[in-house]
């Protein structure tokens, strides 16, 4: 039992009208402290979120199997007949040039995870870093420059920006990743900036400064860990955005350059569906839909569990 426990949820989370309840804020993040454990508990009770996580794990295992060479290796072989139906040899048929759709779909899972993870991790880190600096030095020239960069990037249409990056890098296989990272960090940075501004005025931060912690230590050891809930949720959102963007970029010829992907499969299928060949389209879009849906469900329940102020 603790003194700060709300005795009564009251209306709109206010305890009673006597005194406005002040935002107490999180304490210093110390490993597995109680808010985190509470969040995990809450997360585990969310059936949809857990279903989503389970599906994501299955997909991750498929992708891992491709990396380890267990399956999905024959994705590029054109040995099969073209547009073959479902058979024992080609479980989900073949495409226009006789490639096995099942193997291609498996291999694409790996591609999706590679894109999703690279873009989610790097853009979230970049957003965290720039957002933290921006919030910590709010009102100074550092903040101004970061905000300016953010504004400029937000003002350039995404697909045109990617196209420009792709051509500037002359067909580099990482052009798409770089372009996504360079644009997706802005939302994370905005959220982190707001949180850091709020956190830096809280007591425990003042206490840390008072006992002589340097500004950088204060920021990275005491403030940034408390934005972890934002970073985790943003990471999952960016992951989804990245694999969804990949499809469109691949269709535009700016996407995956090596290997195959759901985006490339769907793009291929645009030539096939009007001839009544739907297998490529159905397999790739279903595989992708299930993963994105699962990630969205997980992301939502993560947000519910981590953000006590989120409205449901």
């Amino acid at each position, binding site marked *: 039992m603790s003194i700060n426990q709300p005795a009564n949820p009251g209306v709109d989370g206010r305890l009673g009208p006597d005194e406005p309840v002040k935002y107490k804020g999180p304490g210093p993040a110390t490993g597995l402290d109680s808010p985190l454990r509470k969040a995990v508990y809450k997360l585990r009770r969310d059936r949809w979120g857990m279903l989503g996580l389970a599906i994501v794990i299955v997909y991750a295992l498929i992708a891992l199997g491709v990396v380890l060479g267990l399956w999905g290796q024959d994705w590029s072989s054109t040995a099969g007949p073209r547009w073959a139906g479902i058979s024992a040899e080609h479980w989900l048929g073949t495409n226009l040039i006789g490639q096995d759709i099942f193997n291609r779909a498996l291999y694409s899972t790996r591609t999706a995870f590679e894109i999703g993870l690279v873009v989610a991790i790097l853009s979230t880190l970049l957003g965290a870093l720039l957002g933290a600096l921006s919030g910590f030095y709010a009102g100074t020239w550092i903040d101004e420059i970061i905000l300016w960069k953010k504004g400029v990037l937000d*003002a350039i*249409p995404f697909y045109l920006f990617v196209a420009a990056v792709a*051509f500037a890098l002359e067909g580099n296989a990482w052009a798409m990743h770089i372009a996504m990272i360079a644009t997706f960090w802005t939302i994370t940075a905005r959220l982190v900036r707001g949180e850091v501004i709020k956190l830096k005025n809280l007591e425990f931060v003042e206490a840390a400064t008072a006992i002589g912690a340097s500004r950088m230590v204060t920021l990275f050891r005491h403030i940034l860990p408390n934005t972890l809930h934002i970073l985790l949720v943003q990471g999952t959102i960016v992951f989804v955005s990245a694999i969804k963007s990949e499809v469109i970029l691949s269709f535009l010829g700016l996407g995956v350059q090596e290997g195959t992907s759901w985006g490339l499969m769907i793009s291929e299928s645009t030539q096939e569906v009007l001839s009544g060949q739907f297998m490529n389209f159905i397999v790739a879009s279903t595989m*992708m839909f299930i993963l994105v849906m699962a990630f969205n469900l997980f992301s939502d329940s993560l947000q519910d569990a981590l953000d006590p102020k989120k409205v449901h």
Partner: protein
Amino acid sequence: METLQYTLRKLITGLPLLFGVTLISFALMVYFGPDLTYELVGKNPTQEQIERVQSELGYDQNFLVRYLDYVREIVTLDFGQSFSTGEPVADLLARTVPVSLALTLPGFILGNLLGILLAQIAAWNRSGWLDKLIMGGAVVGMSISFLVVIIAAQVIFSSSYGLNWFPVRGWSVYSLADYLYHVAVPTLALVFVSLGYNTRFYRAVFVEEMSRDHIRTARAYGTPPIPLMLRDVLKNSLIPIITRIMFSIPMIIVSGSLLIESYFGIPGVGKATFDAITTGDQPVLKAVVSLTAVLFVLVLIINDILYKWVDPRVSLK
């Protein structure tokens, strides 16, 4: 007068944004963009011809000089003619921007209106089955790729495997009937793909607004659900709604829906810009980039004026 002063002030604060957008676009699209020398020199060029073309293109100058040149051409609205087609850039924009607007506006407007409507229903029935149904549908909608939606819509409505009601691709619009005939499937796809995001966004706005004290007051004085949602909640939520809509407008004007235009072969500005990037058509790029930046600054200004209009507490300072 207040508004005019405000606009001027805001225009000045918009300058860094203009600077940033031109700088990034110059660096990416021109300085590091495609090398056009060999496209312009013709067959079997001599070394001299190559050097002449390169100097015309400014390739022998340093970054700063070329950037300043680029800005000067933008400021003087001297965009010239498209490298690839020879069409004056102004004509190109006048031809493609209206097509993109005609193509995307119906979907954009419907997607937002339907999103607001569904969000109001969901927010009013918060945590009820209707709310869960709508929000569940939103997550499903958000999980389907735009490209998949377009292909499915095409197969269902425009192919011989489906209803075959609408054209497979193209944009030959000479009358209202033509327009409706061509715009139907793209609109459907646009609404479908934006509805999930819009509904979620607007629902969060409405739910937050409904937790406010003055909504409790309104309910404590017997306000029925429809006036409550459509007057009290909606009017108080207009600021985030306006912001979302306003900031989508520059994107619609300059990039339309690149994917739809590419897919259906519609000659809109998105496709034109995309082609300009891939071929390094600098005059077109310059025009589009400056248009983008100017639109953004305009939107920033109009946005704040709209804020003042919907919320009497806002002052233009």
